[in-house]
């Protein structure tokens, strides 16, 4: 199987080349998923920031297409795991297999040993299976029977869940939600986009199948190195912290942003700055990624069992962003 790709840091000449790479990928994605430029840019930002992505939407709006397109654009190896109620952790991680011929055990890697893992309908699997992903997402490795197996680099998990049909599902635990850098929702395309999709339809081959790689895993690793090197001014860092504190003190929010959320927000904002070919973060970058980074991590007071509070959370985050003055 795939040996883990060596994290080759090809230092990008500057933020300008990083921006060019991001634009290239986003343009490529737009060939497969039309009319969603903003969401595509955020998805690319998330991947470039080295974060895992949670896609939450009704079926049939292009979640899977987006993930496939991402993998193709960056030239990443992809595996797709359909999460079901009977899915076992070993079905994802892999297992020790006994070879009767030699009388020895050998490790057979599961589908998680890919650079991009699509965990489809993550909330359909029981918590035990969901949590099998935790170590992989947090540390980029899998531990089985006392042996640690490193995952291929770059490694990204994209999970999807259906926000409408919650029957028979296991809501993602907070610790799991907190590990996704962003939560995005594609939504239905605009009517004119849907009409264009209809008229362009020629055969059963979907657009994503003919998508070509416009970047490489090495370039993605370079992008991530560039993101990590972005400058975050003290004033902006304080702004991030103030935003997080404001969610903690908000009357309608039971539990506000965690420290991990603060770090995630900083990382996403660093990546977002690349779109402007900047090597430093501005308050505008922070606000651009605030909703996707924070909304899914908040526990609202109004939240009852299984109720859907996504819009409300986004609304509260926007309110906080309005109230906390940006540094100037």
């Amino acid at each position: 199987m795939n040996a883990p790709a060596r994290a080759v840091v090809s230092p990008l000449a500057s933020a300008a080349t990083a921006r060019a790479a991001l634009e290239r990928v986003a343009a490529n994605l737009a060939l497969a998923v039309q009319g969603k430029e903003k969401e595509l840019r955020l998805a690319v930002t998330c991947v470039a920031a080295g974060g895992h992505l949670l896609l939450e939407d009704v079926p049939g709006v292009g979640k899977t297409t987006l993930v496939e397109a991402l993998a193709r654009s960056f030239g990443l190896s992809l595996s797709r795991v359909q999460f079901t109620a009977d899915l076992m952790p070993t079905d994802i991680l892999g297992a020790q297999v006994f070879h009767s011929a030699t009388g020895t055990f050998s490790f057979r890697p599961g589908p998680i040993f890919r650079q991009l893992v699509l965990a489809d309908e993550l909330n359909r699997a029981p918590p035990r299976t969901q949590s099998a992903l935790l170590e992989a997402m947090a540390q980029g490795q899998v531990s089985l029977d006392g042996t640690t197996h490193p995952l291929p680099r770059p490694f990204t998990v994209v999970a999807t869940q259906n926000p409408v049909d919650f029957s028979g599902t296991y809501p993602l635990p907070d610790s799991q939600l907190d590990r996704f850098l962003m939560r995005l929702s594609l939504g239905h395309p605009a009517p004119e986009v849907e009409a264009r999709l209809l008229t362009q339809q020629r055969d059963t081959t979907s657009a994503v199948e003919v998508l070509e790689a416009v970047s490489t895993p090495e370039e993605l690793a370079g992008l991530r190195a560039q993101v990590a090197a972005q400058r975050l001014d003290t004033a902006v860092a304080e702004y991030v912290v103030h935003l997080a504190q404001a969610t903690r003190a908000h009357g309608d929010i039971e539990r506000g942003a965690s420290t991990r959320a603060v770090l995630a927000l900083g990382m996403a904002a660093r990546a977002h700055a690349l779109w402007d070919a900047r090597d430093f973060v501005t308050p505008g970058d922070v606000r651009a990624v605030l909703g996707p980074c924070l909304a899914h991590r908040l526990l609202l007071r109004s939240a009852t069992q299984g109720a859907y509070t996504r819009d409300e959370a986004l609304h509260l985050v926007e309110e906080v962003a309005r109230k906390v003055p940006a540094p100037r």
Partner: protein
Amino acid sequence: MTRPLRLRLLLRDLSIAAAFASMAVSGQVPLWAFGLVLVAVLMGVLGRRPFARYPRLTAALLVPLAGVLYLAVASGQMDLVVAACSFAGLVAAQRVLSESSPATDGQVLLAGLLMIAGGAALSGELLFAVCLLTFAVLASLSLGLAVVEAAVPVGEPVPVRAVMRPLGRGTFVAMLGAMAFFILIPRLNWNVGVRRASPGLGTATSGFSDTVRLGGSGTLKSNPRVVLRARLSPDPGTEQLSSYWVGRTYDTFDGLEWSTIGASTKRHRTRVTLRPGADNQVYQRIELLPAYGSRTLIALETPAKLGNALTHTALGDRRTQLQELGGDELRFVEEGLGYSYEVYSVPPGTDTDPGRMNQQETDQLLALPDNLDPRMEELARRVVGDEKDPLAAAQKLSAWLQREYEYTLELSGDVADPLRDFLFVRKAGHCEHFATALTLMLRTQGFEARLATGFFGGERVGDEYLVRAGDAHAWTHVLVPGRGFVTVDATPPAFRANQSLQLIETMISLYESVEALWRKAVVDYSFRDQLDFVRSMSRPPRDASGQPRPSSSLPPLRAWVTAAGVALAIYGLVRALSQRRARRPAQEATRLVDAVERLLARAGLPPREGETLEDVSARLSGEAHPLAPVLAAITRRYLEARFGQRPLQSGESARLLAQLRRALDDGRPTARAS
């Protein structure tokens, strides 16, 4: 909207109370306005804001109030300045009772500033200074809290303690700094050309007066204002002096009023010797306080030498001249806030020389008014009997008066002949009645006598004696051959000194001592005092005998301490400045944003609520606005300078602003985004 900080509103309301008090201490604010503001501030302090619901309606209430004030001014009942000040107080009161918002806070504090300015116009002494300081401290604390409250994100608790501690410390340091500035920086006296009303509580309404009119207003024995402070040598050592402080004497009574016919030389001299001194003289260093309200010098009986007179004016102390008037009166020539001088007195009755007396004066000591009641002579003869010694006769009469007559301050209105009224109708009166009766009754029996006025008593406070307005007194001088004028007092002893309440006396003493300190240390603090202060810092200390200590030629400890303090202050200043310089790039960028936003607002493109320059630039780019390229370039540069550690070069921000200005003028872009 979270609830505003209770503490901040309390500080704000109390600061308004102080500002209003700064005007109210002048006593010129009408009572009804005073009451309205008082009620408003009390309600504000208790957190009641009943006007919050009807801001418009209650603001309309100010219109009739303004009308009332206008009528008062138009009819000449009220000064325009007083009316304006009162209206500022009423506006502040209305705002205090309304809902708290940044706009309201600003209006309240603005009204406070106006009232402070009004207070400065109406009065200007210690109480005003106290109010001003209180307002400054409370308003700064309230403002500081308001700034922090606005900066804290919605829903988060305001860190009151964390704010108040440095804020309070900062205010304290600022006050100390102001005092240091006041003491050390050479100063011009801004009082030049400004004439203020009487200082502090004003002159006492009664006390020593230039004329004695029987049955007139009389003396208010309950007035506790201190009019005179004296240091005596040798020190009598008693808590309560039983001495007569004489101001002037009268020899002529017309049946209603005492006056002086005696010689009035009107000579001006700086040092006056009234009569030869004696060995047992009592030295007095006397200060006449502003409450005294007259220019006549006062001294213990019997004054022998007076001199070294100083007038205390708003411009400082000045050597001045004295004027000799009839009735042995000495008067300051110049008007002043207060006076000080030195006197030597000899014990009364030890003086053998009655002073300059001509025949006319001697005759006057026996003169009687034309309309004198004939029963009086009869009465006097019955009491005196065949006593030939003037002093013995006087003492007999005095004892009889004290026995038969009652002391009272409750006098009915004007009567045609107050002396007859006292002697035969009411048989009650105050010191002027007793003294007048004794003097005239002596004269009917051929004894030469005159009326003396001044003060009686003196209360020891520290190493000084204080005399109050209520101590004002009148008594009789009998001319005793071979001894001169001897004092005889017909007033019952218990009623000679003032009869004010002990508590009020203590409070007034305290206030007046603080006021004196304020006048000496602040109002009259001059360039010369500054020089003296600096000299005292650098001179070697003296021992008790006044000789410099020979042991060391080094400056004294206090000079070192001061030098260390100054060095510390300079070090702190340099450090603060260097830190300021380190923060300059960010501040410069922030100033650029402010300027850009001002320009945009002027061009009709103000940032929307919560929008940063970044947002505005993005919005204009999205709208393909002609300004967008220029603004994008400027924004880019600002962001780099503020968050990207690429500070603006010198002159760069001016250049960027000029570009923007040009673009705004042309209505088309002049620079491309780089």
